[in-house]
């Protein structure tokens, strides 16, 4: 696979090297995001597109009481997630499932949190895929998006340089809010980091 395929769906030795790089590159953004997230009520997390498991390891250190399910298209990434999160796996608090956000292999209301870090750019149908995330959340649950890019005039040139060769979709913050609303979410709130162009969005299910 070429470079662009590896970013989109890392696999094999090259994919593992790519995932290590992404874990390192996203560490600062996740540290910043965790400063803005209340994880005290999190108990059962689906990490969609968990990749090499770096963001999960940072979240699980702060939410050490929570159970995690990592979902990814790539078996190699799930094995890496197990290694990066070996202590969580060992204590029986990590499950790994190979699957697609297009059709999540879980029954309705299985999780209280769906976490998606640096992955929605590649989702095939963002509105429908967010609807799938809503379906597997219990009432009172939350969707958490952490990303290093959104579409805006300030970031357009940078985003376009990243998009070269990729099938990536960047939305404005307003579009993400609208798509989450159309997918059945309510109470959408977003915090941005204007220097780096990072954001964290939390959307509730509107239930209790």
């Amino acid at each position, binding site marked *: 696979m070429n470079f662009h395929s590896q970013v989109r769906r890392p696999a094999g030795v090259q994919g593992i090297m790519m995932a290590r790089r992404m874990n390192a590159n996203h560490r600062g953004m996740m540290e910043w995001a965790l400063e803005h997230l209340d994880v005290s009520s999190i108990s059962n997390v689906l990490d969609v597109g968990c990749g090499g498991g770096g963001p999960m390891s940072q979240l699980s250190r702060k939410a050490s009481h929570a159970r995690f399910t990592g979902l990814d298209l790539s078996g190699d990434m799930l094995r890496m997630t197990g290694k990066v999160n070996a202590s969580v796996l060992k204590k029986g608090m990590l499950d790994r499932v190979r699957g697609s956000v297009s059709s*999540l292999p879980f029954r309705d209301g299985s999780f209280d949190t769906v976490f998606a870090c640096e992955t929605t750019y590649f989702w095939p149908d963002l509105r429908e895929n967010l609807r799938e995330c809503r379906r597997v959340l219990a009432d009172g649950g939350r969707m958490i998006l952490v990303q290093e890019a959104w579409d805006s005039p300030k970031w357009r040139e940078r985003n376009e340089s990243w998009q070269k060769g990729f099938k990536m979709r960047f939305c404005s913050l307003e579009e993400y809010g609208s798509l989450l609303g159309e997918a059945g979410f309510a109470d959408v709130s977003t915090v941005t980091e204007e220097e780096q162009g990072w954001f964290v969005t939390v959307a509730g299910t509107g239930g209790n």
Partner: protein
Amino acid sequence: MMRKDLVAILACPACKHHPLELQVEREEAGDVMEGRLLCPGCKAVYIIEDGIPNLLPPE
């Protein structure tokens, strides 16, 4: 490894049937390492390999 009680939340990605039927071929310390998940709804078969169930939707 795949914990057996993961089956409590798994559903078929093709038809959304729940529950799936677990067939264990090899286990370690009570967790599934190799096996299959069968969907009674649409008859799809999903492989568990190296303790990871492959629930990608059928092509």
